[in-house]
């Protein structure tokens, strides 16, 4: 050091600065070593994760057909204009409101709502701004892509129900998985994510895993604002399997027509092939339009319509065939008669019981609508003699009735392939409550239960299954809509990580029918009575058909006490049946809510379906008429 050698250790001080400088640089070097050499791979991966994104390509859902190949449900491509929230972060959204509402012809208020919503969403999420857009909207978005980078047109296959309200309860609808469902283990374990479309209600829900396809994806490079820079890879989706149902659309339309032209326009008509449980028709009125659920939940108008469905007192969303529980009234006498014979309460030779115009239990007299002397079983069925069944019920006892309930399956679900089926309520299920509250099961309850009132409410589907099994002389099939699922071929090359294997087609696996053991002459006796209801001067003589002998039973289920209310709470009208009487091909039951007498309302509704059936399956009348 030339200067200041004599003072203040200047050389040492400069040296100290030099040492500090080198130490600082060495610290930086050490940190570099840690970041780049020790953790280099970790950061490479993080960088990769933030710049590579998988954009799912939704898979088309399987279509649904009727038994003759008529299209019931389809998916069609729609284009949506979606908003991404990343580019919006740095924008004052209010500036965009007028542009969007003019350019896309949207309500200003709606645009404001959407913009406020998307601001609250997580990064990289998108939101539909306008659904099902036309060509001119697509052109507008494309031509303004520089100005509004946050807008994008996305292809989305949308579920479409071409028949509208027809079959709505059976088909169900699809919608976005709800936050609540996402929490559930069944959905979590299968890897569902927010925004996934799933079946809600009906066959869409029951067979969701087969109808649903496997989504593909686009692997893309994005910048820090989430804008796609280049496409790296495309993996095609695999569409879902097509479902062929057992439904006969013509019968379905007829069933719905019958309900639509009924007095109250509320009720259900169901038809089944009793030989195998194939459901031919299931109508429930009033109905709803599933398209509103598919399209609607994201628009204020759609939300309003959906809310209206939920609030409607007539409950259009509810499938009366499997969720409605009604007192069966006199239709209950059919399984009861078969059970009485099976249990030996009556025999084929000695089936007569007094009518007596009614019965006195304790101090209360419960009357029969007619005076039938001391009829045998077929006549009691044909004329629907209540007096006969009061005595039969007492003879069987409530234990006998409970046994009958078990024999005909009124204590369980029918097993139909639809979600949310209700179980009937019967003396079996009521017994514990009655014993707890009243101390004993009184005879009057047995009397009421013998004619399907008071402690008995059943679902129409459970009634159909029981009545059809009588027609089949004890063979009880599980009702079902599935005929077959069609196969889908594989996607991609085998061995590839993105390979999706083929999905095999399959048909409904019929379990062995349950057998209800009765002697042939015992079945004859019950069926003879039912034949008489329509063909032998019985309660439904008015619906007799020349070419098809229907075996049936009317029912008039009391809603209020007799004579108390004939207005809104009028009796439910039932008709249960199968035809031809001695070799059934089809079993139809009808229930018209609050319409009054069974024969005059439900009977004709069932007859309409038989007529439609007859038209489709014309055959020599001898084959269908009793010898």
């Amino acid at each position, binding site marked *: 050091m030339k200067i200041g050698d004599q003072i203040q250790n200047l050389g040492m001080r400069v040296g100290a*600065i*030099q040492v500090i400088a080198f130490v600082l640089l060495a610290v930086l070097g050490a940190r570099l070593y840690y970041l780049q050499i020790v953790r*280099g791979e970790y950061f490479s991966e993080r960088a990769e994760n933030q*710049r590579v994104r998988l954009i799912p390509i939704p898979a088309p859902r399987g279509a649904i057909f009727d038994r003759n190949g008529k299209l019931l449900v389809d998916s069609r491509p729609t284009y949506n204009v979606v908003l991404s929230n990343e580019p919006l972060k740095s924008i004052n959204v209010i500036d965009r409101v007028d542009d969007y509402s003019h350019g896309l012809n949207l309500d200003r208020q709606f645009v404001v709502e959407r913009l406020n919503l998307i601001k609250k969403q997580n990064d990289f999420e998108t939101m539909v701004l306008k659904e099902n857009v036309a060509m001119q909207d697509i052109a507008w978005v494309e031509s303004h892509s520089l100005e509004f980078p946050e807008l994008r047109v996305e292809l989305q296959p949308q579920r479409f129900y071409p028949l509208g309200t027809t079959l709505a309860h059976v088909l169900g609808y699809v919608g976005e998985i709800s936050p609540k469902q996402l929490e559930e283990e069944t959905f979590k374990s299968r890897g569902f994510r927010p925004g996934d479309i799933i079946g809600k209600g009906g066959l869409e829900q029951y067979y969701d895993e087969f109808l649903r396809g496997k989504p593909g994806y686009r692997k893309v490079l994005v910048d820090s604002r989430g804008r796609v820079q280049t496409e790296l890879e495309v993996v095609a989706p695999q569409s879902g399997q097509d479902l062929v149902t057992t439904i006969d659309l013509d019968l379905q339309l007829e069933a719905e027509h019958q309900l639509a032209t009924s007095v109250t326009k509320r009720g259900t008509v169901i038809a089944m092939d009793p030989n195998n449980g194939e459901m031919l028709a299931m109508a429930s009125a009033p109905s709803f339009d599933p398209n509103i659920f598919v399209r609607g939940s994201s628009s204020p108008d759609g939300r309003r319509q959906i809310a209206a469905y939920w609030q409607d007192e007539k409950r259009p969303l509810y499938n009366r065939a499997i969720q409605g529980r009604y007192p069966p009234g006199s239709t209950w006498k059919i399984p009861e008669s078969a059970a009485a014979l099976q249990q030996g309460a009556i025999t084929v030779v000695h089936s007569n019981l007094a009518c007596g115009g009614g019965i006195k239990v304790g101090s209360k007299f419960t009357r029969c609508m007619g005076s039938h002397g001391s009829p045998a079983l077929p006549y009691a069925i044909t004329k629907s003699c209540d007096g006969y069944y009061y005595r039969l019920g007492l003879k069987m006892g409530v234990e006998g009735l409970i046994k009958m309930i078990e024999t005909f399956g009124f204590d369980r679900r029918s097993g139909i392939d639809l979600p949310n089926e209700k179980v009937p309520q019967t003396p079996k299920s009521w017994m514990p409550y009655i014993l707890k509250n009243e101390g004993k099961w009184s005879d009057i309850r047995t009397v009421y239960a013998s004619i399907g009132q008071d402690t008995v409410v059943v679902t129409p589907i459970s009634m159909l299954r029981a009545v059809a099994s009588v027609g089949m002389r004890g063979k009880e099939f599980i009702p079902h809509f599935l005929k077959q699922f069609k196969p889908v071929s594989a996607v991609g090359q085998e061995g590839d990580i993105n390979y999706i294997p083929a999905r095999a087609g399959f048909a409904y696996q019929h379990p062995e029918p349950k057998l209800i053991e009765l002697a042939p002459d015992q079945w004859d006796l019950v069926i003879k009575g039912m034949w008489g209801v329509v063909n032998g001067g019985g309660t439904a003589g008015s619906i007799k058909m020349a070419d098809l002998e229907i075996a049936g039973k009317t029912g008039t289920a009391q809603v209020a006490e007799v004579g108390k209310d004939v207005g809104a709470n009028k009796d439910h009208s039932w008709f249960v049946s199968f035809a031809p009487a001695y070799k059934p091909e089809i079993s139809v039951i009808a229930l018209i809510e609050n319409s009054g007498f069974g024969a005059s309302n439900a009977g004709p509704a069932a007859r309409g379906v038989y007529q439609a059936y007859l038209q489709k399956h014309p055959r020599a009348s001898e084959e269908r008429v009793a010898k």
Partner: protein
Amino acid sequence: MVAIIEKRDLRDFDWPTALLALTISAFGVWQIHNALPTESYWSKQILGIGIALVAFLVVAFNDYRRIIDAAPVFYIAGLVMLFLVLTPLGVQVNGQKAWLKLPVVGQFQPSEFVKIPTVLMLAKYFGARKAKSLSLREMLIGGAIFAGPVSLIILEPDAGQAITYFPILAAMFFLSGIKVRYVVLAVVAAAIFIPAAWHFGVKSGAIKRYQQERILAITDPDSVDPRGYGYHTIQSTITVGKGGLTGIKGETETSQSVLKFLPEPHTDFIFAVTAENTGFIGCVSLLLAYALLLSRMIAGAREASDRAGMLVIMAIVCGMVFQIFMNVGMALGVLPVIGVPLPLMSAGLSAILSTFVAIGFVISVKLRRFVN
């Protein structure tokens, strides 16, 4: 001040230092290109380096002693410029009024240049004093010289730039014989005062949330919003780490800066770009180049013919070390995000110009190491 270049000047000229600085700045141009290949920052930087070289030669071949004699003129001019920044002539960028737009000259950042007059002024004052321990009076006068520009810069407000002035004062005090016990005292005081100030600042709300987040992003990166202030630190760390041993080998289209994950890649985060593109090897080479450059400058200080010349070089050295450490430390996620340019590397005319002028002084001092 016309430069009369004599034969002796060319012989004694410190070629290695000049070439080292030029090499680093050329390497910087390449990284600026890597950062934003589609934009013209790299070509503007070449132009900047060209202008800077002219200024560098002018300074280098002039006698620094004459310039130091004129220091008060430069110093006053500097203060005027800093004052003008605060007037409507100043240009606001990103909420900071750090720029001055003048006719002909164009837009520039006075706080970058005023470092030089400040160094000269301090060197003039401290260089003239006698060889004894620093007195309190001398410290106050030095502090006052320093406070002029720094307080104007804080008013802009540009805390990042202001901080880069402190090493200059520290170097002046330390090399003017401040008692070692004062140095120890200052270090101890800082160790106590800074955490205490943090604690009370956070509690009282004097340190704003975004300021806290810049610090927390270092100490606890998971606690801050990764899209907010932590974002810079997180993205810079990812970018550096991604570089690995040898860098991304030209795959710039998927680089962090091109995809805009890394903010300010050509200025504040140029080191992260370097790390991504050239890897550990490139970064360590760059740090070694800096070490070599600083060593040569310090060697020049040791050979300086007078005290003022030594002080000028060492103040510049301290300023540079400090800026390198702040900038690279920020890119490596060990220091908070403060907008300090990396000397010779960051894009920016003002910065490259003032750095080359500073190195010009170093060379000028070295040229006159032989007392006439």
